[in-house]
């Protein structure tokens, strides 16, 4: 074990020891078991034991202990967070850290893609974030209007699935996807036209710049006037928001090919379309994906905010604004969770696609 790992191990054992001493008579059996395990684990600091029984320093052991302790703490939360429970919670977290630390150290020399490190570590990190959120909100008795615990939000996600699905369908599947496709698609086509003509470049760039500077809270009511209350007006807001980033990025991308590469195509007497498809567009892909990724989050924000300005009685934005008024903050958080999941999933999907298509770019190259 490295110095940091020893330190983490010692700190965890101390926390467990404190919990045992402080709460020996009051703690539930599960908590006592957790504290006991943590203290016993402190014995791994002895080099003799580690040498005789190398299995005890495996990261899997830390993972199991941290999960057992975390579960024991979660189960005891309703009784309030006394000092001893805090000690076990912190010990659990320290063991989690220790497990990650050891896994990363083992992985440092490995090559290639490792699912445990690439996916497991972020998930584990998320778990601890939720754990302390839960522990702090319940343990400290924070009013749910200020910050509901994740378990309450999770319960809402399960019990109100039908409403959430309807909202997701209205806002994401209709407004966001349609607006995103129209906005990015038209900006792409316009960028290609603009790239070809200096006249259009002079005309379109200032207009695009102007539109992008329009405040969304000004545009949204106007779009409702133009396109009605339903999702079409939200899609229109998304089009306005996504158009400019896509156009500007595509334009930069189309001029990304070097002068030498253009000369090369000239020496082959290549036509406009051949140059476009064989040189300009492939070279533009990193720029285009940049815009697609920026727009994937912009579009979601645009559609949600646009629903604050008139909407049928369905949609993520509508639900957020009404449930806030009714003090149902758990529902608001559930909608936020749905939106965040949808946004992250589309961003992640675009990133994966980007890796596949622009594998040649210096930032993704593999020898």
């Amino acid at each position: 074990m490295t110095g940091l790992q020893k330190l983490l191990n010692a700190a965890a054992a101390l926390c467990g020891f404190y919990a045992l001493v402080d709460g020996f008579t009051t703690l539930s059996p599960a908590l006592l078991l957790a504290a006991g395990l943590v203290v016993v684990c402190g014995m791994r600091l002895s080099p003799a034991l580690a040498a005789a029984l190398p299995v005890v320093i495996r990261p899997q052991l830390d993972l199991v202990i941290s999960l057992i302790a975390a579960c024991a703490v979660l189960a005891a939360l309703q009784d309030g967070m006394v000092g001893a429970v805090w000690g076990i919670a912190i010990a659990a977290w320290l063991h989690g850290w220790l497990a990650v630390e050891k896994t990363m150290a083992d992985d440092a020399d490995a090559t290639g893609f490792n699912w445990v490190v690439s996916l497991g570590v972020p998930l584990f990190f998320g778990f601890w974030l939720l754990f302390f959120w839960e522990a702090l909100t319940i343990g400290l008795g924070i009013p749910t209007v200020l910050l509901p615990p994740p378990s309450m939000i999770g319960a809402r996600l399960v019990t109100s699935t039908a409403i959430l699905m309807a909202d997701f369908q209205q806002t994401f599947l209709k407004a966001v996807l349609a607006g995103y496709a129209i906005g990015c698609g038209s900006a792409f086509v316009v960028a290609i036209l603009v790239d070809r003509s200096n006249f259009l470049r002079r005309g379109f760039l200032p207009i695009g710049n102007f539109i992008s500077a329009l405040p969304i809270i000004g545009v949204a009511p106007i779009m409702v006037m133009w396109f009605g209350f339903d999702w079409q007006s939200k899609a229109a807001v998304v089009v306005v928001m996504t158009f400019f980033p896509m156009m500007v990025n595509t334009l930069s991308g189309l001029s990304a090919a070097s002068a030498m590469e253009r000369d090369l195509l000239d020496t082959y007497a290549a036509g406009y379309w051949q140059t476009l498809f064989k040189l300009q567009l492939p070279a533009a892909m990193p720029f285009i994906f940049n815009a697609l990724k920026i727009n994937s989050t912009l579009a979601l924000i645009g559609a949600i905010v646009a629903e604050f300005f008139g909407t049928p009685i369905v949609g993520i934005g509508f639900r957020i604004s009404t449930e806030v008024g009714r003090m149902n903050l758990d529902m608001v958080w559930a909608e936020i969770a749905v939106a965040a999941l949808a946004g992250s999933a589309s961003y992640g999907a675009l990133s994966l696609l980007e890796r596949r298509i622009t594998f040649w770019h210096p930032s993704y190259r593999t020898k």
Partner: protein
Amino acid sequence: MVIKADKLNLDFETNDGVVHALRDLDLEIGAGEFVSLIGPSGCGKTTFLRVIADLETPTGGSIAVNGQPPEQARLARAYGYVFQAPALLSWRTIARNISLPLEIMGLSSGEQQERVERMINLVGLDGFGGKFPWQLSGGMQQRASIARALAFDADLLLMDEPFGALDEIVRDHLNEQLLQLWKKTGKTICFVTHSIPEAVYLSTKIVVMSPRPGRITDVITSDLPDDRPLDIRETPKFLEIAQRVREGLREGHADD
């Protein structure tokens, strides 16, 4: 005559006034010759090559490539051009980079494949067709770019300091290979360089140029034998020609 320049002039307008990139250039290059253009930077050697390739338009005089104006020659795909950098497209494999001109010229895919294989073999890149350019060394990349320029079988090869960025050893090796390629294919080669040994080693004719304004100061016909091992560079004949090139270069500078 493959190339015939007559009183060729090219002036660039810049903020500091007119720059005479080429002044009254007269030059004839016959079929099958290996001609080097040598001179210090700013002498217009690359500009001259770009005029032949119709990448620059002259402002005076006349130039004919295969008896045609350069633009027609370019549209007829009369030449292959090798740039200072390999300029390989990084999203295409070596094989698909070599087939790029063939795709643009609309050859059938069977024909493309057959030619690409032949070219890869010709420049000694067997087994590297499926690699991407960034997986290859600089010398291999430049060989791929030569293969690409040769792939559509133009009779004229224009090379703009193709080995300038490579180290001495790789450069010697590629010079040797280029000579063999030239002998094997019988193409006309126009080769821009600023290395005297490279020019003398490769060429049948050396055109010495000097800057401000860009002009030809000497044209030296080399009588070195066709068969040139690398150690020919130590023979008195070689050194004599190299000396003449050096004098030509110095003469051009004496004007400043």
